């Protein structure tokens, strides 16, 4: 317990003090006796002995410093003194603490978010070794889900590198209980899921080993904790009850622990069921087709095995699969990501570190600007404290002691700032929590204040304290005693040099905040550009509502009757121009897709069958969304289940499958390689379907009458604001069936603001915009502070100038010129720094170059204009100097 020694010694302090006194007393007595023996008088002998020892106070102080606890005692003393000094200057203290709190608040917010998104591990066994395994196919550039069959092979072939591999397939499922159905997000999992993740049931049991791994077995369901509380009021009696999952009976066997929200970060999973349950659904090929990719794969690395080693082992399996099943797996590349960087999807695994870096650099810059501000405040105050420092130095305080004292003061400021920053950051997080995309998925952003955030804030506060305090402290503690004391406290210590330093700090602030401003400008421009992207449809004045008759146990004929009646009633609503049904909405959260085979174009066995997106729609769909038909016709009521099967393809599909001639009249098949064939009757302008930035892929539409799907969205185009129709719209479905679950009732504009639409652009622009504003504010305060400080120090000079006939205008110019030089230098450095830094943003921007001249110019103008405006005040004040007063003041 060596580190305890100083603390123990601290409590023995009085004893040690007494001993030192005794020791010195003994020395003095011996020396006095020696002098007496040499014939001095008693008084002379005593004084001579004292003189030989020198300054007793200083001697004791230096001796005390060698005791182990000296630092502790001095620290407490310094903290007490520092608190007194700060309390005596409330104005300064509040300004400094607020500035630091703003800078640290932004940092806390970003860190809390990054923590929630990335750093906080899943509450599962060996979370630090958990990885996501994903495949990247030749046609899709993003790594993602794996087919069930391939996942079995990867699992069987990798015990050398993984202790376990499991997975989950997410699906919206209707859970019916006592006549009422909810639409849930359900994870269908292999039976090793809970065991591998080390999860035990909070209530009942989880899925047993081997339970429900085969198709059409395992009719059980484990509820998510929050769904259990929401739907069943946390009633333990629900265990053993029978519910229906998409109409199939299943027994509730348990509830997962409260802290487990599902394996898919950011989403609250409602329930878990065995994979076998998927077998009860319509035959989808999940268990039999390698082209049917639906499984998110998780694997736990063996201790000591690296991601790269696991990657290499899986590569071998991937190559074998490609040889064995060229049809489905050729050109496929398997990837292993640490689970934390593959959130929410492995697709971000390559970009996420960059995004996080960018945000951390931005908040880091804002904090640096805040620290520089406080450093400047401290420097200004050091000038007024020279006398105090000189007196302390004269009384025997060493330079280290003064330095420590000053650093402790800045640390106290930083700690107070850290507390303020934590509060501000927490508040920002709550705001950001409210910014979640609307509807669809049960999003869970739990931005909580855990120990990681606390440790981060503490570390940032410490760094800020040193950053803001070190230079001023070094400066202030370097004191020429004679000079300072003699000059009676008029700041003379290295005056030109100090101005140089203060100016340097302001220039750095301006430069730093310009970099943040430019980045904010680029993100904002990027949003504007994204908003002007041609979506291929018109999202204005469209209202959507989702429902799924299967959740209510409807069979196909009943559902189709329901659709027809719903459409008929919707068209009669006042203010509705047209109404249509679709399986999915563009830029929504789910989509259907299929392999397509053009008639008469057999593919060589080595080539992969191309895939295309697919939507099932009713006749007025293209009118409702105002999509542009390039050729042919839209669907009509004459396209029924008994008429000729037809399809409408997008431009990309027409060009890819039939590059040399008109697509209309051609046939293709999407259900199997051999038919049935559908005839292309129209070509539509490429709409954005999966993501704003996606290069349009092949996409086609079939009449809903010819491809039954239960999940549906009713869309209407309104003549007025669509929001006014929401109540009537919801009532429409409820009138037809009061128990029909209705979800995602929102306007198309709200919908395209979702996760696959503008959400990330808006969130990015809002956040960087706020940071840019903050950086700007802090820099302006800095410029204002140093300019008005210098102006007030130059009162005397200005007074003389005016006494000698200087005009107000030239005095005004004098002050403004200083500001202009500072800001100009800062802008030049800032522009260069921004050019160097923003290059890394390039991949995150849409339709705007990272060198966008307009953004650079805009940021510069904004900064220069506000800075000079802020300096107008001290400049005006300087022109009001009364020469008589200024001169007499001296």
């Amino acid at each position, binding site marked *: 317990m060596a580190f305890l020694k100083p603390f123990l010694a601290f409590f023995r302090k009085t004893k040690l003090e007494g001993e030192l006194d005794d020791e010195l007393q*003994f020395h003095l007595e011996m020396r006095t006796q020696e002098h007496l023996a040499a014939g001095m008088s008693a008084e002379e002998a005593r004084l001579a002995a004292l003189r030989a020892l020198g*300054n007793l106070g200083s001697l004791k102080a230096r001796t005390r410093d060698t005791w182990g606890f000296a630092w502790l005692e001095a620290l407490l003393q310094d903290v007490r003194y520092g608190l007194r000094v700060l309390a005596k200057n409330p104005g300064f203290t509040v300004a400094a603490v607020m500035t630091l709190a703003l800078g640290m608040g932004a940092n806390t917010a970003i860190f809390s978010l990054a923590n929630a998104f990335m750093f906080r591990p899943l509450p599962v066994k060996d979370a630090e070794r958990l990885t996501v395994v994903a495949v990247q196919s030749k046609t899709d550039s993003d790594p993602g889900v794996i087919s069930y069959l391939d996942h079995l092979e990867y699992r069987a072939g990798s015990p050398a590198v993984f202790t376990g591999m499991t997975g989950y397939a997410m699906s919206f499922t209707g859970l019916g209980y006592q006549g009422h159905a909810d639409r849930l997000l359900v994870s269908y999992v292999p039976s090793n899921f809970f065991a591998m993740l080390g999860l035990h049931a909070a209530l009942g049991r989880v899925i047993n080993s081997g339970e429900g791994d085969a198709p059409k077995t395992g009719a059980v369901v484990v509820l998510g904790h929050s769904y259990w509380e929401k739907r069943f009021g946390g009633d333990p009696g629900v265990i053993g009850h029978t519910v229906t999952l998409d109409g199939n009976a299943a027994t509730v066997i348990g509830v997962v622990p409260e802290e487990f929200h599902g394996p898919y970060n950011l989403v609250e999973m409602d329930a878990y069921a065995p994979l076998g349950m998927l077998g009860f659904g319509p035959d989808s090929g999940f268990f039999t087709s390698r082209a049917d990719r639906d499984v998110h794969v998780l694997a736990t690395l063996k201790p000591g095995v690296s991601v790269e080693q696991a990657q290499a082992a899986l590569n071998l399996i991937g190559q074998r699969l490609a040889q064995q099943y060229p049809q489905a797996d050729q050109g496929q590349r398997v990837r292993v990501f640490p689970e934390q960087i593959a959130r929410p999807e492995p697709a971000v695994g390559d970009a996420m570190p960059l995004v996080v870096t960018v945000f951390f650099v931005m908040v880091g810059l804002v904090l640096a600007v805040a620290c520089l501000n406080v450093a400047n405040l401290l420097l200004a105050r050091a000038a007024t404290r020279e006398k105090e420092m000189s007196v302390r130095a004269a009384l025997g305080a060493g330079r280290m002691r003064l330095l420590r004292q000053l650093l402790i003061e800045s640390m106290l400021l930083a700690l107070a700032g850290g507390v303020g920053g934590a509060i501000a950051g927490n508040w920002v997080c709550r705001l950001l929590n409210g910014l979640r995309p609307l509807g669809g998925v049960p999003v869970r952003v739990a931005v909580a204040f855990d120990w990681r955030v606390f440790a981060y804030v503490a570390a940032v506060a410490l760094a800020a304290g040193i950053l803001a305090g070190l230079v001023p402290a070094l400066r202030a503690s370097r004191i020429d005693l004679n000079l300072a004391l003699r000059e009676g406290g008029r700041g003379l210590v290295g005056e030109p040099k100090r101005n140089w330093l203060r100016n340097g700090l302001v220039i750095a602030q301006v430069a730093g905040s310009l970099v943040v401003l430019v980045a904010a400008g680029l993100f904002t421009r990027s949003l504007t550009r994204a908003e002007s992207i041609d979506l291929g449809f018109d999202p204005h004045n469209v209202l959507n509502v989702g429902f799924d008759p299967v959740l209510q146990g409807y069979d196909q004929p009943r559902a189709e009757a329901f659709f027809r009646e719903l459409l008929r009633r919707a068209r009669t609503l006042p203010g509705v121009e047209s109404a249509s049904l679709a399986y999915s909405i563009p830029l929504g959260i789910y989509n259907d897709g299929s392999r397509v085979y053009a008639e008469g174009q057999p593919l060589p066995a080595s080539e992969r069958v191309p895939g295309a997106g697919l939507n099932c729609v009713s006749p007025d769909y293209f009118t409702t969304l105002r999509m542009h038909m390039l050729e042919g016709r839209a669907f009509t009521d004459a396209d029924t289940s008994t008429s000729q099967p037809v399809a409408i393809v997008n431009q990309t599909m027409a060009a890819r499958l039939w590059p040399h001639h008109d697509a209309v009249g051609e046939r293709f098949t999407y259900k199997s390689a051999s038919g049935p064939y559908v005839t292309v009757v129209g070509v539509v302008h490429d709409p954005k379907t999966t993501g704003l930035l996606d290069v349009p892929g092949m996409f086609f539409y079939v009449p809903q009458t010819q491809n039954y799907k239960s999940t549906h969205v009713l869309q209407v185009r309104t003549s007025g604001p669509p929001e006014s129709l929401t109540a009537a719209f919801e009532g429409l479905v409820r009138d037809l069936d009061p128990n029909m679950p209705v979800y995602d009732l929102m306007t198309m504009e709200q919908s395209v603001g979702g996760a696959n639409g503008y959400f990330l652009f808006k969130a990015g622009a809002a956040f960087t915009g706020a940071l840019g504003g903050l950086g700007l504010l802090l820099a302006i305060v800095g410029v204002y502070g140093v300019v008005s400080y210098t102006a007030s120090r130059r009162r005397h000079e200005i007074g003389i100038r005016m006494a000698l006939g200087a005009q107000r205008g030239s005095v005004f110019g004098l002050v403004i010129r200083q500001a202009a030089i500072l800001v100009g230098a800062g802008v030049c450095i800032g522009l260069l720094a921004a050019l160097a830094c923003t290059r890394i943003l390039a991949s995150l921007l849409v339709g705007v170059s990272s060198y966008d001249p307009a953004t650079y110019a805009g940021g510069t103008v904004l900064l220069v204009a506000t800075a000079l405006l802020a300096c107008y005040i001290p400049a005006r004040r300087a022109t009001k100097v009364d020469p008589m007063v200024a001169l007499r003041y001296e």
Partner: protein
Amino acid sequence: MGKEQLLGTLDLLVLKTLSRGPMHGYGIVQRIQQVSEDELRVEEGSLYPALHRMEQAGWIGADWKDSETGRRAKYYRLTAAGRKRLAQEKENWSRVAEAVAKVLRFA
């Protein structure tokens, strides 16, 4: 050591003095003065901080004992670590002294 104390020699002198047996602060001053025939005078103001520093470093230990005058005094003694330190300091010193001597002879 006159007025200009040679930097860093105080530790060496104190350790060497204590290698002959335990001694109190005043005794150390006297002893160094005697042996050096009044050439070296330890600055008393620096002695006590140095003693306490070396005590903290573990080179010397201390005990309160009755002195020759019957009054209780703090006697310092060399520890094993102190003996090692003394050897080092001695070695350093001879090297420096030799080097200075060479310069005086040849430079």
